[in-house]
């Protein structure tokens, strides 16, 4: 390991990691699905409900004021974390999935019409594929697919062939939840912007692991989920450039998103409130802001560097086991590692590992097109976070060898 980062300094902050599973210390390698929560975040949510709970933007009373202040402060914290110019660019949603659906509905339905084209890549999570399929079907647009290579990288040169003067949007993931691939976003954005095409970036896997600066990336939309970055479930973010937010239609109708209402008409609240109809996940937003404070305290740059080290170590370790095949070999990659071991089915393997206290994911990882491309039904995935240790990786490798013995009569 090249970095001096010490995960043991942070592990005590995560109460859940202290437990045993089937008599073995929990080894949590399912961070791409959701990460664990530090006590700080759990306490922030608890404190909110115990001390400040009220609805926001609606009450004159003290609690309402406190809740509103905390909610809007959370927006500022998030804006700062991703380098947004203004907190008006931060829309709270329930997660990356809802953020994408929001854009598909509020932006897509206004700007994409019959015959227009939307580009997504072949490595997208279903949440960055299905909303565009639905939109394309509804308005008569065409979904174009940027293919991937078998090593889990984009076939970048194919952009030339599928871009056209009808392309209205490129929606692409920053980091693959299957291969770990970090895509060349700067290159994609500048190519797209040269042609006046906006880019939606799925940051569900990148925002938790890499320092993100939307000013530098210059993407038009960025979506991510709180629960994959030490925050609670049920809260996520849509960041967008101001002009897009100003021009977009509302997403859902209801309270809070309006300015004035008559029986037959209404005008919309200013951004970002225009997109937040109904009572929002106030405690969730506060919890996410606390998670961000925590990640900033750990330091995002250190997290990235440590994870780079740990992922290299893990891959080398797994490759040293006879019968392990790893899917994805991008030059730039993060901590999601998909693999198979001999002909042991991922479900059987994941169940075996669970018996040893190790949590991994088995399945298609919400990316069935990738599985089809690789001609696989499923893979096992170990996904890392900064609280994982070299010792845990060694233990995983040990147990993979045990699994081979167990399943090979």
């Amino acid at each position, binding site marked *: 390991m090249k970095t001096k980062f010490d995960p043991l300094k942070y592990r005590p902050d995560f109460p859940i990691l202290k437990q045993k599973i*089937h008599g073995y210390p929990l080894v949590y390698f399912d961070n791409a699905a959701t990460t664990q929560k530090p006590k700080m975040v759990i306490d922030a949510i608890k404190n909110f409900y115990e001390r400040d709970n009220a609805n926001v933007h609606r009450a004159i009373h003290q609690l309402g004021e406190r809740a509103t202040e905390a909610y809007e402060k959370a927006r500022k914290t998030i804006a700062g974390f991703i380098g947004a110019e203004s907190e008006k660019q931060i829309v709270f949603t329930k997660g990356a999935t809802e953020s994408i659906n929001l854009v598909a509905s509020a932006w897509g339905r206004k700007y994409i019409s019959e015959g227009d084209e939307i580009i997504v890549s072949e490595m997208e999570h279903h949440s960055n594929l299905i909303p565009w399929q639905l939109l394309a079907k509804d308005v008569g647009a065409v979904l174009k697919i940027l293919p991937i290579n078998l090593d889990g990288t984009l076939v970048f040169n194919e952009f030339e062939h599928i871009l056209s003067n009808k392309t209205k949007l490129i929606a692409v993931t920053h980091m693959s939840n299957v291969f770990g691939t970090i895509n060349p976003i700067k290159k994609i954005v500048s190519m797209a912007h040269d042609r006046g095409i906006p880019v939606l970036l799925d940051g569900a896997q990148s925002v938790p692991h890499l320092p993100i600066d939307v000013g530098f990336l210059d993407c038009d939309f960025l979506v991510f989920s709180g629960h994959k970055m030490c925050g609670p479930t049920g809260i996520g973010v849509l960041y967008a450039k101001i002009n897009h937010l100003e021009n977009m239609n509302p997403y859902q109708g209801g309270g809070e998103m309006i300015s004035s209402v008559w029986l037959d008409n209404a005008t919309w609240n200013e951004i970002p409130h225009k997109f937040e109809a109904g009572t929002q996940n106030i405690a969730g937003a506060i919890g996410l802001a606390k998670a961000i404070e925590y990640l900033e305290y750990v330091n995002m740059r250190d997290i990235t560097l440590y994870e780079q080290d740990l992922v290299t170590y893990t891959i080398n370790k797994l490759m040293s086991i006879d019968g392990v095949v790893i899917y994805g070999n991008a030059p730039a990659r993060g901590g999601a590692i998909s693999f198979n071991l001999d002909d042991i089915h*991922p479900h059987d393997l994941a*169940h075996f590992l669970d018996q040893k206290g190790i949590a991994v994911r088995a399945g298609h990882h919400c990316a069935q097109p990738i599985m089809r491309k690789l001609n696989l039904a499923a893979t096992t995935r170990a996904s890392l976070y900064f609280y994982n240790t070299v010792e845990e990786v060694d233990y995983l490798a040990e147990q993979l060898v045990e699994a081979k013995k167990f399943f090979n009569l």
Partner: protein
Amino acid sequence: MDAEFRELYQEIILEHSKSPRNFRRMEDATHKLEGRNPLCGDQYTIYLKIENGIIADISFEGSGCAISKASASVMTSVLKGKSIAEAKKLFEQFHDIVTGVKTTGDDTDISRKIAAFSGVAEYPVRIKCATLAWHAMRNSIEGVTNSVTTEEK
């Protein structure tokens, strides 16, 4: 290793999953149905040749975990030559065993084979694996032709 887990992956189950019986396509099947578990991608096609109410031949192909494959294999081996009524009864017995409701109560060769799956009852998440092929079989003999998934009971 925990005894219950060994119980789940008994030798007979591992053996059937590695060398599944009747693992082939059947060109002259009278009944054919695909069963899928969309959550994990397990997918099998069950073929039946039913003549005069008797399962004259049964086979399967597809892929999935050891539990689902062994269960399909054992199913084909116990159902060959059985009547439709017997097949339905065995379905019920198998279902009772993997859900832990009750055992077959006798000690025939068939009972022993399906009793090997009793360990599944300790692991509710694996019940769908164990019953996938059986559900496809039962639906198929009842005339269903669209693929079945584990999401519908």
